[in-house]
């Protein structure tokens, strides 16, 4: 439990100043910047997070999950002790979501956070109406430890540091010492105010032209699975062999996998009867998120990511795989440019700072944000595939972890999404889907197999032998 005289108090000298004295406008949004750090601390949501509370529903959970498969069974009591030990180091995660009149905000949460049992269908939304509810939870089952965390709190980078620190503390309690640093935080350390900054505000450049708005993309067809269920299909490959394969095509791992994904989407679209007439098709567009800390100086553990949107317009004809690779590589290179990214950052930040938008009461703003999410969000891309990169577990306990997976929750709009992460030589690619048909997963993995890679596939949805997924076309 977070102590009252906890780690927020010793803020750096500049943050001790009254907020009026601070030059940048974003800094005043945090109570820690004030002279009364213990009065009733609260945080404003960062600019990527403000959309999520409005869209949270039983169908859209906005929770993602990092899970580790260990060599040994999980000692739940020790995991609980490790969680309790590291929580004070991450005060910006120990919060609950509250409604203000104009915006949602985070309030410090003093309730205990228990490790909970895992279930077959992960990443269900946690109640944010109930007071004392956290926006993340640690779950355990057999040899698996999982962190399910809401995107309102942080992105994959922040979640990975928390998860790494949790595992390091868990193994420390078993007598395996790990050096702090390189993404593993010392539980007794003092949180740096830069860890909870809204980096979007700092890197917005007022006056920058808005990004060009994309057109609507094609979306996967398919009947929805029952509510509160989700199919998870995970494929594991040898990282070294995939890297060799990507090099053969002159691409990076992310570009290669994004191209395979686009090719798989094309396979599904080609097989769809309604797309028989090419003129009636819509472009296939993939969202590939990028960690903005690689482009802008920031060590924030809150959201700080944007995306590239490589696409293929199948109205122009069938794309061969090499054509897709060339196109994806070029489009991602153009998008992952700090100036281009600054455009989108500025648009997002300036929209939220617009006085006319700010004075709209939250209840109306939510309706507005839900429609914006559909029209300017999901509508513009067919699916989402994120590559979190290397898990970078410290050598001290890396051997104790067999595999790391990242799972993304799907939404009724996107239906199927994917996430990738590597641990040692194991590259894990996990699909989360809320539709019955699994032809995208099948097209993706069989393409990898046909490319000469060995893929091991598992799923939480047990199908009876010989019983096809209903309405599958491939």
């Amino acid at each position, binding site marked *: 439990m977070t102590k009252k005289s906890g780690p927020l108090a010793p803020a750096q000298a500049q943050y001790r100043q009254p907020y009026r004295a601070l030059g940048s406008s974003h800094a005043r949004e945090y109570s820690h910047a004030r002279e009364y750090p213990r009065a009733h601390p609260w945080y404003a949501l960062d600019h990527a997070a403000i959309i999520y509370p409005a869209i949270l529903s039983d169908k859209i959970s906005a929770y993602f999950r990092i899970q580790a498969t260990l060599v040994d069974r999980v000692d739940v009591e020790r995991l609980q002790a490790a969680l309790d030990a590291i929580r004070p180091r991450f005060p910006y995660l120990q919060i609950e979501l509250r409604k203000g009149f104009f915006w949602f905000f985070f309030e410090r949460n003093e309730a205990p956070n228990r490790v909970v049992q895992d279930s077959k269908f992960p990443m269900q939304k946690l*109640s944010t109406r109930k007071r004392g509810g956290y926006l993340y939870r640690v779950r355990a089952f057999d040899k698996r430890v999982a962190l399910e965390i809401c995107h309102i709190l942080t992105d994959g980078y922040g979640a990975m540091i928390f998860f790494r620190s949790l595992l390091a503390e868990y193994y420390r309690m078993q007598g395996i010492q790990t050096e702090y640093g390189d993404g593993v935080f010392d539980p007794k350390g003092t949180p740096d105010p830069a860890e909870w900054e809204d980096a979007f505000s700092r890197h917005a450049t007022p006056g920058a032209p808005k990004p060009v708005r994309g057109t609507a993309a094609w979306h996967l067809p398919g009947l929805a699975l029952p509510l509160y269920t989700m199919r998870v299909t995970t494929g594991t490959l040898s990282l070294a062999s995939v890297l060799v394969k990507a090099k053969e095509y002159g691409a990076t791992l992310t570009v290669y996998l994004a191209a395979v994904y686009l090719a798989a989407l094309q396979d599904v679209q080609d097989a769809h009867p309604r797309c028989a007439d090419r003129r009636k098709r819509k472009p296939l567009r993939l969202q590939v998120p990028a960690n903005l800390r690689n482009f802008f100086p920031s060590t924030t553990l809150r959201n700080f990511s944007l995306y590239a949107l490589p696409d293929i317009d199948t109205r122009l004809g069938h794309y061969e795989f090499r054509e897709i690779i060339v196109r994806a590589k070029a489009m991602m290179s153009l998008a992952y440019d700090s100036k281009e990214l600054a455009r989108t950052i500025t648009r997002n930040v300036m929209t939220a700072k617009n006085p006319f938008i700010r004075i709209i009461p939250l209840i109306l703003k939510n309706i507005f944000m839900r429609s914006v999410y559909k029209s300017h969000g999901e509508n513009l891309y067919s699916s989402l595939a994120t590559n979190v990169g290397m898990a970078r577990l410290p050598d001290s306990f890396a051997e104790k972890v067999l595999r790391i997976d990242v799972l993304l929750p799907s939404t009724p709009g996107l239906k199927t999404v994917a996430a990738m992460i590597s641990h040692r030589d194991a590259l894990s690619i996990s699909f989360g889907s809320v539709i019955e048909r699994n032809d995208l997963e099948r097209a993706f993995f069989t393409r990898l197999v046909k490319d000469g890679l060995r893929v091991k596939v*598992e799923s939480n949805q047990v199908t009876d032998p010989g019983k096809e997924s209903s309405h599958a076309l491939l």
Partner: protein
Amino acid sequence: MPYCSNCGVELDDSVAACPLCSTPIQKFDALTRKPEDSPYPQHIIDPEDAYRLSKAERRRIGVELLTLAVALASAALLLVDLLSDASLGWSRYAVASVVFGWIVSVTPIVLYGRIKAALSIMAAAVIAFLLVLDGMDGQMEWSLTLGTPIAMTTFMIAAATAEIMVTRRIKGINLLGIGALGLSVFLIALESILRIGLGTSIRPYWSIVAALALVSVAVFLFYLHGRVLRGADLRKIFRL
């Protein structure tokens, strides 16, 4: 390690079919793991489900909140009236209205999914409300002659019209015609009740004029439905 002969992917020892294409996997019993060794937990219930309220629980909470609000509002009204006049005067009317509002709002929640039963109870509540309002000063003046007959006639004609509409095989523009006929019957009945209640001449006048106009509209609509549009769906015709 088993693999799918169809997709070419490798699979876990515990699975009986490929998760991608459902092709049965040939297995050797000695190597096969038990189902409980599956890498995924098999219990479906998420601990969080304990906090998720079912629809029935939400309805129960809704009824509780409405009842509490009505009880508090009624008590406040009665107390204010008692404190100011030392007797119950105007507050009886206000409380009757609040209780009527409670019955009308709680009935559809309690009888969720039983529309006919809920509507019947709400209709009875309207009649009872009219009688209570009229009888509060000790004598029945307008409720027996006007209020109750008008309410009952309205309900009966609306129910009959709805029943006829529901039983139509093709629901198109003919429904508008049935509605017009129902309205014309209602207008004649209304004028008759008003004339009997007020003790004027029994012969209806204005309602006959209105009914004739409505009947001619209905005849036109039936003709349009049967001969021209041939049972076309309203949604199709008026699609924006």
